[in-house]
C-alpha cells in the first residue's frame, strides 16, 4: 500500500515539474516566439469558458458545455447508428460462414481507407453540416464494432455451444443466453475503440465541415488568434476522451462482473 502511494507521487512530480517549467519559461518570455500562453492563462481561460463563456469570432459567445453538448450529440447519433448496423452485421458474419464469405471482401476493400478520407466525398454529396459529421463518425465506428463483434462471436468456446445444444436450447435462447454473453468482452472492446475513434473524428470533422462543437471552437480560436482558448479546448477534448474511455471500461466491468466468476 505504502509502496503504491510512492509510485503515484513520482508521476505527479513529473507532471508538476512540467507545469512549473512551462509557467517559468513563459514568464521569462521564452515561449513568446511560439505564441504559446502560460498555463495560468490557459487555466483562467478554461474556467472562464466553463462558467461564463467567451466571445469567439463568428461563433458568438460560447461556453465549453454548449460546444461539448453539440459534439457529444453528434457522436451519439453517429455512434449509435454504427452500433445498430455494425453489431448485427458483425454478429451475422461471425454466426454464418456463408455470410462471412460474401461480406468479407467488402471489408478488405473498404477498411484500409482512413475514415477521414470519406470527408471530401461526403462534403461533395451531403454538403457541410451535421450529415457529413454523422457519416464520418458512422464509418469510423462501424469497422471496429463490427470486426470485433465478428471475431468475438467466431471465437465463442465451442464447448459452450455444444453443451447448450445438448441441453436442448433453442436457437434464440442459444444466441441470447450463450453466444452474446460469451462474446460481450470482445464486443465491448469494439465499442471502446469505436467510441474513441468517433470522438477523434467528430473533432476533426468540426474543424473542416461543421460550424459548432469543440473542434469548431478551437478552429475559430485559431482564426481570432487566441491560443489560450485552443489549449483550453484541447484540454477539455482530452478530458472528454478520457471520460468516455473510462465510462465504457466502468460499464464493462459492471456488466461483466459475473464473467470473472465464470472464467476462473
Amino acid at each position, binding site marked *: 500500500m505504502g509502496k503504491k502511494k510512492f509510485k503515484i507521487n513520482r*508521476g505527479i512530480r513529473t507532471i508538476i515539474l512540467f507545469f512549473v517549467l512551462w509557467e517559468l519559461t513563459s514568464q521569462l518570455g521564452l515561449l513568446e516566439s511560439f505564441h504559446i500562453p502560460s498555463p495560468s492563462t490557459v487555466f483562467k481561460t478554461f474556467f472562464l469558458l466553463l462558467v461564463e463563456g467567451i466571445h469567439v469570432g463568428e461563433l458568438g459567445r460560447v461556453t465549453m458545455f454548449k460546444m461539448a453538448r453539440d459534439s457529444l450529440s453528434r457522436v451519439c447519433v453517429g455512434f449509435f447508428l454504427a452500433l445498430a448496423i455494425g453489431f448485427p452485421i458483425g454478429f451475422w458474419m461471425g454466426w454464418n460462414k456463408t455470410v462471412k464469405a*460474401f461480406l468479407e471482401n*467488402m471489408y478488405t476493400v473498404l477498411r484500409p481507407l482512413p475514415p477521414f478520407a470519406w470527408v*471530401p466525398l461526403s462534403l461533395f454529396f451531403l454538403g457541410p453540416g451535421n450529415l457529413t459529421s454523422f457519416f464520418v463518425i458512422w464509418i469510423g465506428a462501424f469497422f471496429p464494432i463490427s470486426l470485433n463483434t465478428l471475431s468475438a462471436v467466431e471465437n465463442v468456446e465451442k464447448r459452450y455451444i455444444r453443451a447448450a445444444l445438448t441441453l436442448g436450447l433453442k436457437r434464440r435462447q442459444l444466441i441470447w443466453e450463450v453466444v452474446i454473453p460469451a462474446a460481450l468482452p470482445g464486443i465491448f472492446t469494439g465499442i471502446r475503440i469505436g467510441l474513441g475513434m468517433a470522438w477523434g473524428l467528430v473533432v476533426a470533422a468540426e474543424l473542416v465541415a461543421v460550424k459548432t462543437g*469543440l473542434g469548431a471552437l478551437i478552429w475559430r480560436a485559431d482564426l481570432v488568434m487566441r491560443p489560450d482558448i485552443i489549449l483550453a479546448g484541447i484540454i477539455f477534448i482530452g478530458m472528454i*476522451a478520457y471520460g468516455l474511455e473510462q465510462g465504457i471500461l466502468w460499464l464493462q466491468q459492471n456488466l461483466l462482473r459475473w464473467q470473472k466468476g465464470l472464467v476462473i
Partner: protein
Amino acid sequence: MTSKLIVKVFQRWLWIPCLLLVWTLFAKFVHLGTWSFPSPWFTFEKWWWLFKNGTLIKDIGSSLFHVGYGFTLSALIAVSLGTLMGWNRKMFEYLNPFLNLIRPTPPAAWLPLVVFVWGIGLLPGILLVIYGSFFPILLNTINGVQNVEKRYVNAALTLGLGKRRLMCDIVLPAAFPSILIGLRMGFGFAWMVLIIAELIAVQSGLGYMILLSVTTLEPESIIAGMITIGVVGLGLDQFFRVLIDKYILKWQKGIVI
C-alpha cells in the same frame, strides 16, 4: 455442394465484378443533390488520366514523404523512450502518468494549435504524424521490454554479460516482435492522421488532392484519390505484415522452441 462451390467462387474473384455492378447501378440510379454519383468506369478513366498526368505520382510522393519522415522520427523517439521506460522501473513511474495525461487527446485536436504556431505547411503534417503514431509504438515497446522472459535475463547475467550486451543481445531481440507490432499499428495511425492533416493544414498530398477535387467539382477525382489512399495504405500495411511474419514466424520460432 453447389452452393458451397458458388460461395467459394464468389469469395475468390466473383466479388469484384459484383462490386463493380453494384457500384454501376448505384451510380446510375442514385442522385445525390444535383450531382450523380460517378460510375466506376469513369472513375478509373480519371484515375488513369491523373496517373499518366503525373499529378497522382506527385501527390503520392508528397504523402509518402510526410508519413515516412514523421513515422521514422516517431519510431526512433518512441522505441528508445519505450525501451528506457520498460527497462528502468523508476523512469516508468516518473513518466507514465504524465504520458497518460496526454495520450487520450485525439490527434486532430492538436491541429489548430500546431497550425497556430507553425502555420499551414509541411510541419503540421509531420508533427501530427509523430503524435498519432507515437503512443502505439511506445506502449508496445514498453510492454515488450517489460515482458522479456526473466529466465533469459538471468541466464545472460549468470553467463556474465555486461549491461550493454544484455540490452542489445537479449532484451531488444526478445522485445522485437512486440515492437514490430507497435510499429505496424503506429503506421496505420500515422497514415490515418496524415490524411486528416492534409485535409486541413497541409497543402499537398493525397488528402489535399481530394479536398481540392471538391472545390473543382470533380467527384470522380475524389473517388480516384480515395482509392489511391486505400491502396497505398494497404500496401504499406502489407509491407509491415510481411516483415512481422518473416521475423516473428521464422526467426523467433528458432529461438523459442
